């Protein structure tokens, strides 16, 4: 049985710019676990593996992927899934997650998390595929909701209905990104609390929190380049108080020193009170 994280657990996304500070830390850091980007560790780079080993000997590690391409035209290669399963076994990951999206098609890989129309036909497709991934991994698999900048028409169902049905039908889990709910709500004009209300929080493996930026045209962009916005904290607090779940801070651009990132993460506890 994979390890289980406490619902009160606080995690941080492992980033290269923090490696040195981690190695030099003299005491255990105020963080309960780390999340790694799966693809950064699927290869055989010795430095990557060295840092992973250092972290996994001290903290639980969960896997978060960006390359599964769940709604892509072709199945993930057996090689990709085998590497992912092997990595999950190696770190004894409590769970693995990736996104409810597509990342490539027609032989191209776009290295971005791209939305698909929210239609019933794709619920079945995504649910079936997510279930297969979970079975292959042999441990809980969570799907993350996207930040999106376009919505396709005609919309036959809301994004939250689409997301919830995929998770339910697939027998998988939510990797609920609170910041993404907020960003998409602003971009598409829906109520983020209505979205939250549709989520069975008992199936949330983990929530992501992160910062975002307003682009020149007013569109909110999921940049992960600054502290968490107060509106996102409010949404987070409402969700966590309803049913607690492990919480992870992502920071991918203009990454602050490790201490500052951990201080931002610690704010989650204040929000829960």
């Amino acid at each position, binding site marked *: 049985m994979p390890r289980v994280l406490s619902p009160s657990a606080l995690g941080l996304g492992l980033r290269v710019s923090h490696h040195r500070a981690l190695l030099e830390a003299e005491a255990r850091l105020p963080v309960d676990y780390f999340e790694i980007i799966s693809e950064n560790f699927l290869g055989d780079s010795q430095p990557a593996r060295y840092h992973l080993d250092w972290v996994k000997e001290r903290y639980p590690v969960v896997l978060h992927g960006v390359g599964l391409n769940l709604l892509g035209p072709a199945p993930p290669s057996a090689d990709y899934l085998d590497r992912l399963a092997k990595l999950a076994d190696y770190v004894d990951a409590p769970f693995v997650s990736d996104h409810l999206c597509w990342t490539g098609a027609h032989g191209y*890989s776009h290295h971005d998390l791209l939305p698909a129309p929210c239609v019933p036909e794709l619920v079945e497709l995504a649910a079936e595929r997510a279930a297969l991934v979970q079975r292959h991994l042999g441990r809980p698999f969570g799907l993350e909701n996207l930040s999106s900048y376009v919505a396709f028409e005609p919309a036959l169902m809301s994004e939250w209905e689409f997301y919830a049905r995929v998770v339910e039908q697939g027998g998988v889990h939510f990797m609920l990104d609170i910041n993404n709910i907020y960003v998409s709500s602003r971009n598409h004009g829906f109520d983020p609390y209505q979205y939250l209300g549709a989520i069975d929080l008992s199936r949330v493996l983990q929530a992501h929190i992160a910062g975002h930026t307003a682009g020149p045209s007013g569109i909110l962009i999921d940049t992960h380049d600054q502290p968490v916005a107060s509106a996102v904290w409010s949404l987070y607090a409402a969700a966590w108080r309803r049913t607690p779940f492990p919480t992870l801070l992502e920071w991918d651009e203009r990454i602050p020193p490790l201490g500052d990132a951990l201080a931002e993460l610690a704010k989650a506890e204040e929000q829960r009170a």
Partner: protein
Amino acid sequence: MSWRTSPAWLLELQGRFGQMLRTPLDRSSGELRAATHEYDPALVGVVRPDHAEASRAQLAVYNRQYWFRLFTALQGMFPLTARLLGFWRFNECAEQHLLEQPPRGWDIDAVGAGFVDSLSRANVDEAALEAARIDAAYHDVFHAPPVVPHQFSPDEAGRLPLGRLRRSQAVAILHEHWPLCELRRRVIASDPAALLPLEPRRAEERCWLLARDGLRLGLAPLAPREAELLELLSGMPVAAALSSLEAGCSPEERLQLPAQAEAWLSRSVRLGAWAGVDFD
């Protein structure tokens, strides 16, 4: 595992979306801007049928993200090259490279494959091209898999002339006509906006063995003939490599070659240059 295929309409939508992502950014204004007028109207129509301009602006977020994510990945792998060319010119070369060789797999680092050749076709100056080779070597050596440097047994040492040495993936031989390795060190340590001028071309080429030791990269200077020998050894049996090296030497060099070659071989072993030896 059976994986149901996607419906045809989704494949068609994804094809159009992908084409939009790969639409080159417009450079004519002196800034990189999304060329939204080039987007497929059929794609624009399924985003905001009522408001084409808003639809194009929304799609442009993805278009810009596609290019900037890949530019950033390449800049990270080729920091010295980017600094020498300047980011504007570097991104122009990167765009051409990515149009010719768009990403195909989950590993974003794979976009760096073939970039040196692309720069060569783009006729960048010689120093930038040399910088790109050096950047590529640094990246490949650092991210090489774990390698245990080979320790030769007495039996292997005795039969060495017949052996083919396997070069460790955690080393590379660098050729420098400008002090680029030192400049690269300063580029990595400096602010991206700092001015770091390229010093004049050296009178003679310098060679280095770049080797990973733990999590660090180190440079060991190589004599030109030493570098030549190490390169020959990577492609042919030891005896043949020594003969080939000797053939290119002057009579004066030949007198000292046996002793030097032995010393160079020993040094290369100490520096961890070899992962093994094969005997036919």
